[in-house]
């Protein structure tokens, strides 16, 4: 029974991707036609009814105001898909065990967290390769995105980076 502790964002994203796959399968098994969103979500089409637009969230809440706006328009049904969860206890304290292969679907807006989001999360996946994929996800370090554009005509070679109480502050040119 592979259980993986989600330690960082990369692992969270991987777990979310795996969960999306299970939600997709869950809906297809029930006769829905599904379209996966580019930014996490699913449009589920059912004949004779409004489309069901699901926000997929491991955190158990809807994120942006877009979902709220869409609910107000009334043209589609809005819902949330989150994994079945259990509150577990270990020697170090409580944690949330999320079953990624058991989606729970609730219709309507859900702006508050379904479970206590401050508790550490552990995910359960039925397949070893999925557990491995999540475990590996954290080890990939992507180069940080460069902020801003190129500085033209400014020599920054003698700029100093000042550090204050362990926190990096904006660089300023030396006199």
């Amino acid at each position: 029974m592979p259980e993986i502790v989600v330690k960082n964002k990369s692992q969270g994203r991987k777990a979310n991707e795996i969960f999306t796959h299970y939600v997709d399968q869950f809906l297809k098994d029930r006769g829905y036609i599904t379209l996966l969103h580019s930014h996490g979500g699913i449009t589920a089409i059912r004949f004779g009814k409004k489309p069901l637009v699901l926000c997929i969230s491991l955190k158990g809440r809807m994120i942006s105001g877009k979902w709220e706006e869409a609910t107000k328009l009334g043209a589609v049904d809005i819902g949330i898909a989150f994994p079945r969860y259990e509150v577990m206890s270990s020697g170090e304290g409580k944690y949330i065990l999320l079953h990624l292969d058991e989606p729970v679907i609730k219709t309507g807006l859900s702006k508050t967290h379904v479970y206590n989001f401050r508790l550490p999360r552990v995910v359960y996946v039925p397949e070893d390769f999925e557990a491995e994929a999540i475990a590996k996800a954290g080890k990939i370090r992507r180069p940080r995105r460069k902020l801003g554009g190129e500085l033209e005509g400014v020599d920054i070679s003698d700029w100093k980076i000042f550090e204050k109480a362990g926190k990096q502050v904006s660089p300023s040119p030396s006199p």
Partner: protein
Amino acid sequence: MEIFLDSENKMRKALCVFFNHCKQYLASQGYIVFPHRDFSFLAVKKGGYMLLQASIKGFHEKFWRDLREASARAFCDIPIGLIHPQFDFTFIDGREYVRLFLEKPVIKNSLIIQNIYGEEHPKIAVVSSKREFEFIKRA
């Protein structure tokens, strides 16, 4: 800037560029947009919705045709549309090409089976930014 779409990869990258412009265009028209991974949108407006396939090729993929047929069989027509770039025709060395303006999306609110640009013309994408030009060129 114009770039000749002479490969599937370039067509795909041009579709990516077009897809982003569509998102902005639909939002500017007051739609709430849910972009899908297969380059389609669920566009929601007060009292209605529409499923739009973004297309550089100028016609609906088989999935949408099947979906429309299935919904018709179930006596409920799903509103399916197409969003394609504005286009015109140009002659280069005696051959007719279709120029696609990727920044100018056009919405058609019906299932399009036949190529909207007519017969199979070679396609040229028209972009305004160098970044988009380079992105397509690198394919």
